[in-house]
């Protein structure tokens, strides 16, 4: 039976677990190093503050093991802060994150909370999906082997590179489970 780890250091991890639960998928929380040793078929890195999550990943000695397992092929899905943590390059920042995905990202790309917005736009293979952007980043560019899955307003907001899926919006905040289902399908195909 499939089991998904949800990084639960800070942010909207409960919403992801609820979404998985609605899809009939078992999940558990990663709060400390020993949790990581449990069996898992995939990892979700939720929205929240990327600086907070990164600090805790380092303090709790989770950064390296997560990095290694993603490099070995563990399927991972990052939303908003999760996307930032997975990106190799972030505009104006030169420190290591999980940094396994070959994308260049702009943080707080739409400005402060007043710039947060909701829209609906096309997602590859799925069609129109709800997109909630909260102080969101977007992807400025990706290496050629990164697949662009969604764009809105002229910016890349979802992408995939092999076992890694990212969205700069929050599919966990709306009732539409199709992007989570897309991630589950990625795992099954693997």
């Amino acid at each position, binding site marked *: 039976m499939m089991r998904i780890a949800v990084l639960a250091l*800070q942010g909207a991890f409960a919403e992801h677990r609820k979404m998985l639960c609605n899809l009939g998928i078992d999940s558990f929380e990663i709060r400390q190093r020993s949790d990581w040793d449990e069996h898992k078929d995939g990892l979700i890195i939720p929205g929240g503050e990327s*600086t907070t999550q990164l600090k805790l990943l380092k303090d709790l000695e989770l950064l390296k093991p997560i990095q290694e397992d993603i490099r070995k092929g563990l399927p991972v899905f990052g939303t*908003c802060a999760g996307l930032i943590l997975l990106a190799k390059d972030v505009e104006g920042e030169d420190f290591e994150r999980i940094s396994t995905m070959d994308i260049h990202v702009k943080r707080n790309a739409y400005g402060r909370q007043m710039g947060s917005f909701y829209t609906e736009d096309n997602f590859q293979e799925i069609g129109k999906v709800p997109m909630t952007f909260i102080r969101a980043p977007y992807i400025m560019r990706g290496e050629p082997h990164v697949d662009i899955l969604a764009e809105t307003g002229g910016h890349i907001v979802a992408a995939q590179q092999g076992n890694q899926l990212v969205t700069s919006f929050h599919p966990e905040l709306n009732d539409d489970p199709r992007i989570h289902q897309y991630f589950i399908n990625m795992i099954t195909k693997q």
Partner: protein
Amino acid sequence: MSENRQTLNRNLAQMLKGGVIMDVTTPEQARIAEESGACAVMALERIPADIRAAGGVSRMSDPKIIKGIQEAVSIPVMAKCRIGHFAEAQILQAIEIDYIDESEVLSPADDVYHIDKTKFEVPFVCGAKNLSEALRRIAEGATMIRTKGEPGTGDVVQAVKHMRMMQSQIRDIVSKSEDELYEAAKQLQAPYDLVKYVHDHGKLPVVNFAAGGVATPADAALMMQLGAEGVFVGSGIFKSGNPRKRATAIVQAVTNYNDPKILAEISEDLGEAMVGINEQEIKLLMAERGK
């Protein structure tokens, strides 16, 4: 405020969950807070303990100070306005603050009315010491709630009392039959639809943090175990001996609030905690402001 905006503002609070929001008075303190893992900062001219010590009328901070802090960090920046002072709130909205705290820590500007927060695009967090106050603030447009506690004391007793009260009242509403909810709304002096929401979901319709008196990692863990979804730490960090270390420890305590072994490790050697004032020793009960 459109329904869409209200949802987006509630959503931002969801992103802060499991995090620590720290009071800061300078860009330097804001950077320390961010580097220690704060999920947001509250920009202030004076922290609550100093407001308490100084006495007199306490107002919204100088926008220049707030802007300096906004430039220093990448995490959300919040700021306080006085209860009922919608002009201060308009000013904070004009400088694109991420969250306004309509706060009892400042001197109230209106002893009857709170701000009609539905008129604003920017989100508001408000203090509450029970379910009645929380639901009234939500009806006025607040998209996040925190316990009032007793700010600037380093004494967690009031935050505990308010959180326990809120959780117990929520359980009480959940246990009622549907036809009893009209009377419950009357008793709570809160709108029926919000009471119905609490009955159906077993929680507030917005995120609920703890605030007012949290000074140690153990305090933070206590509040989380009592049902808080995150904590505000006001005077507790920059009034302590080693702010960076204490801030880091409190951030970790909020993540691993259920693991006493980790709590024991991070509670070691934090230096001096802020000097606490007992509830009986204070003249001014800020929690009694704005009901």
